[in-house]
C-alpha cells in the first residue's frame, strides 16, 4: 500500500511539474518575449498588449483587467509608459504582483513640452533587455521557488542569445561610418539605441505617439535633413507614414523603410532578437 502511495505521489508530482505553475500577464510585447523565454513551459503568459498595438495610447479594457486580477504576476515596461498603472494596481488589489522590468536600469531623460520626462523605450538597448531578463527571472523564482533551476537555466540560455545578438548588432553597425549614423524617425523612440550605437536622432514627433508635430518643427527638420545630408527617413510599423513621405519629397531623402519602435510585430519581428535584427539591417542598409 505504502509502495502504491509512493508511485501515486511521484506521478502527481511529475504531472504538476510538467504543467504551467505561474500565470503571468504582460503589458508589453517585449516583456512577453522575455517571459516566454525565461518561463518556458512552467509559465502561462497572458499578453495584454499584442503585436501592432500602440502602447502609448493603450488603455486596458474590463476584460483585460479581469485577466490581470487573476494573474499571479503582471510584467510592466515602467518608466511611465503605462499611464494607467496606478488605477490598474488599485483594480488588481495592490501593487504587490506588479513587476517593473524597467526599474533595473537608469532612464534617459528627454525634454517634452518644456519639461524633462523619462524615455520609456528602453528595449532598444540590448543591455537593458539583459537586465530586464534578470528582473523577470528573479520574480519567477520568488513566486515559484520549486522551479528555480528551470528558470535559471532558461534565463541563462536567453542571456547567451542576447549576448550573441549584441555581438552581431555591434559588428553590423560598425560597418556604417559614424557620420552617416543620423536617424530620422516618426517619434522619439530610439534614444537608447542612439546612445549604444553612436547615432543622432531627429524625430518628427516627441517621446509619445500622441504628440502632434508643429509645422515649424517639420520645417526645421526638413532644413536639418538637407544640411546634414541625411540619406533616409524611417516610418514606424504603428504610425501613419504620410508625414514621412512628405518630408522625403521635400528633402530628396529616401524612405528608409519601416521600423519597429514600440514593440514586436507579428511576422518579421515576432521575437525580440528578430526585431533588433530587422531594425538594424533596415537602418544600416538604408543609410550606407
Amino acid at each position, binding site marked *: 500500500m505504502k509502495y502504491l502511495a509512493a508511485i501515486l505521489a511521484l506521478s502527481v508530482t511529475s504531472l504538476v511539474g510538467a504543467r504551467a505553475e505561474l500565470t503571468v500577464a504582460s503589458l508589453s510585447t517585449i516583456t512577453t518575449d522575455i517571459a516566454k523565454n525565461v518561463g518556458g513551459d512552467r509559465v502561462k503568459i497572458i499578453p495584454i498588449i499584442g503585436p501592432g498595438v500602440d502602447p502609448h495610447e493603450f488603455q486596458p479594457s474590463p476584460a483585460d483587467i479581469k485577466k490581470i486580477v487573476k494573474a499571479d504576476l503582471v510584467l510592466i515596461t515602467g518608466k511611465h509608459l503605462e499611464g494607467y498603472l496606478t488605477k490598474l494596481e488599485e483594480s488588481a488589489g495592490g501593487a504587490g504582483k506588479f513587476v517593473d522590468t524597467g526599474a533595473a536600469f537608469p532612464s534617459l531623460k528627454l525634454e517634452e513640452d518644456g519639461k524633462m520626462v523619462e524615455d520609456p523605450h528602453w528595449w532598444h538597448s540590448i543591455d537593458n533587455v539583459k537586465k530586464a531578463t534578470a528582473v523577470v527571472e528573479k520574480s519567477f523564482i520568488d513566486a515559484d521557488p520549486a522551479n528555480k533551476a528551470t528558470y535559471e537555466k532558461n534565463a541563462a540560455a536567453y542571456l547567451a542569445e542576447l*549576448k550573441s545578438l*549584441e*555581438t552581431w548588432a*555591434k*559588428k553590423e*553597425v*560598425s*560597418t*556604417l*561610418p*559614424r*557620420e552617416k*549614423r543620423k536617424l530620422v524617425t516618426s517619434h522619439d523612440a530610439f534614444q537608447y539605441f542612439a546612445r549604444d550605437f*553612436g547615432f543622432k536622432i531627429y524625430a518628427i514627433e516627441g517621446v509619445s505617439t500622441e504628440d502632434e508635430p508643429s509645422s515649424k518643427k517639420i520645417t526645421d527638420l526638413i532644413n536639418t535633413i538637407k544640411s546634414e545630408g541625411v540619406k533616409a527617413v524611417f516610418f514606424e510599423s504603428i504610425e501613419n507614414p504620410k508625414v514621412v513621405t512628405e518630408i522625403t519629397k521635400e528633402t530628396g531623402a529616401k524612405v528608409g523603410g519601416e521600423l519597429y519602435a514600440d514593440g514586436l510585430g507579428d511576422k518579421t519581428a515576432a521575437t525580440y532578437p528578430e526585431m533588433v535584427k530587422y531594425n538594424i539591417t533596415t537602418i544600416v542598409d538604408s543609410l550606407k
Partner: protein
Amino acid sequence: MEGRPWLRIWLILLGFTFLGLPVWRVTHPAAVAPPKDLREGTITFPLRVEVTFASPPTSFDLEYLGATLISSHAPNRDFAIDWKVAISKEGVDLFLSAEWPPGTPTTAVRVKVTRDGSAIAEQTFWGDGSLAETLTVWEPKP
C-alpha cells in the same frame, strides 16, 4: 574650293574643333573622384593600433567599416598594426571581437591608438568567454 569660301571656313572651324578639344580637355581635366575614404570634411591620419590581451585568445579580429585590419587564430597576447584613416568630426569606430578557451575567467584587453607615439584613444575591455566591442577614435587635436 576657291569658289566656296564658306566651305573653307567650315573646314577650318572643324579642324580647330578636332585639335582644340584635346587641348581643352588637358587644360580642363574632369573632376577626379577622391579616394574612397577621403570623405568630405575629413583628414587622413597615420596611426598605430596596439592590442594587448591579459590572457591569449583563441581568435581575435579587428575591423574598420567591415574590413579586416587584424585576424588571428594564434594564441598571441600582443598585436599591432599601422593604420591610415580619414577621421570625420564624428570620429571612426574600430570593432574588435575575441574568443577565449572555455573556462577562461573574465579577462582584460587593452586597445591603444597612437599618433606619433602619443595615445589618442585608449580603453580596457573585459571579456567573459567572448568579447565584441567598439572603440571610437576621434580626430587628434593639433
